């Protein structure tokens, strides 16, 4: 399963990916936790960083809320050693969390300090995933500081796509390449024509799609118990995040799009039916 981990193990510096969206509530934190866990399952050493200072949540999604001693701000201000602030996941020896501070404001750290924090960990990890706060202000700029690339999370809704477009523009102006995850898609609604399809969203935003995750109740259950959904491979969302992790590692796994790429829709297209 982790055939690429050997080659990845030779990498000197880990890859920093910021997970962002503009709009809140579209699944950034769930995505960060799930991708982190999925990459760790592949044998990659992963650090997930909660950059949502003042409104931390990645710790509860990972079930690590009662283990926090130090946090991102402590590392940034050199109040502790970097290694003291990271918490090992209960489920995987390869997955670590650097929690946010819950008592500070977003502007308590600046971009240079975030870069300093990343530099403390780049050599220790294959992947560093930074969970960005919603919005496009200081918290967002901090989360993007030092990122090698970005994953923009959106849902197939007008408001989320509009905000995603804004964020893609901002990332582009920073020279950060963005790839898209379409979260909470409901293929039945897409078939009825009541939800934008994968292709619709791609056409509108014009960036590479790295994954599509179906709306799934198991996400809520996973959050209830503090275990990322990728540990539940019987769910719809778990395998979807696993596939995204594989694509991040360079495996060419096609994006499922039940709204345009299926065998039947290809047949109907051939017959001239506007599928």
């Amino acid at each position, binding site marked *: 399963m982790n055939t690429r981990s050997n080659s990845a193990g030779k990498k000197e510096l880990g890859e920093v990916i910021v997970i962002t969206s503009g709009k809140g509530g579209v699944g950034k934190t769930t995505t960060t936790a799930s991708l982190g866990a999925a990459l760790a399952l592949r044998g990659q050493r992963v650090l997930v960083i909660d950059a949502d200072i003042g409104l931390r949540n990645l710790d509860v999604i990972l079930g690590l809320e009662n283990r926090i001693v130090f946090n991102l701000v402590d590392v940034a201000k050199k109040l502790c050693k970097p290694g003291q602030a990271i918490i090992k996941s209960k489920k995987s020896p390869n997955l670590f969390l650097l929690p946010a501070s819950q008592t500070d404001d977003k502007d308590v750290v600046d971009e240079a300090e975030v870069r300093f924090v990343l530099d403390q960990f780049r050599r220790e990890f294959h992947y560093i995933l930074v969970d960005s706060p919603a919005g496009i202000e200081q918290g967002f700029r901090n989360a993007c500081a030092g990122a090698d690339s970005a994953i923009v999370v959106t849902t197939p809704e007008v408001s989320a*796509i509009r905000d995603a477009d804004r964020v893609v523009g901002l990332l582009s102006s920073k020279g950060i390449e963005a790839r898209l995850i379409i979260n909470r898609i409901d293929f039945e609604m897409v*078939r009825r024509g009541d939800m934008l399809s994968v292709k619709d969203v791609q056409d509108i935003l014009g960036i590479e799609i790295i994954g599509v995750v179906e709306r799934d109740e198991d996400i809520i259950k996973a959050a209830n118990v503090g275990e990322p959904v990728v540990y539940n491979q019987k769910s719809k969302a778990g395998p979807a995040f696993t596939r995204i992790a594989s694509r991040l590692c360079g495996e060419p796994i096609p994006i499922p799009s039940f709204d345009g790429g299926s065998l039947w829709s290809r047949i109907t297209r051939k017959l001239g039916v*506007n599928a």
Partner: protein
Amino acid sequence: MFSALKKKLFGESNESKETAKSRLHFVLVQDRTGLTNEEMAGFREEMVKVIERYFVIDKEGFDIKYHRLADTTTLLINSPVIVRRSSTAAAAAARAATSQEPANTETPTPEPVASNV
């Protein structure tokens, strides 16, 4: 799959996603260009006027898109042409457009457009 067949047989359904798409196109053009509502409407109006000097167009189908790809941005102006204006009318329009005289109210551009099919 059957919804697609149904669509073919019974014509376009009232899919809410089509509304979502057109509303998104509208807000994204504003967001991406940084133009206000009024500026956008003004730009659109002027574009229509310019094209109408030379062509009879379907104003309903006139559409401006601001398309961003990986490293380029393109302004896509889609204007369904019903018929080309007669060469004399177009020539007059071109003369009027380039003339230095202020506001030529005698521009031979007929106001109603839809009647001409």
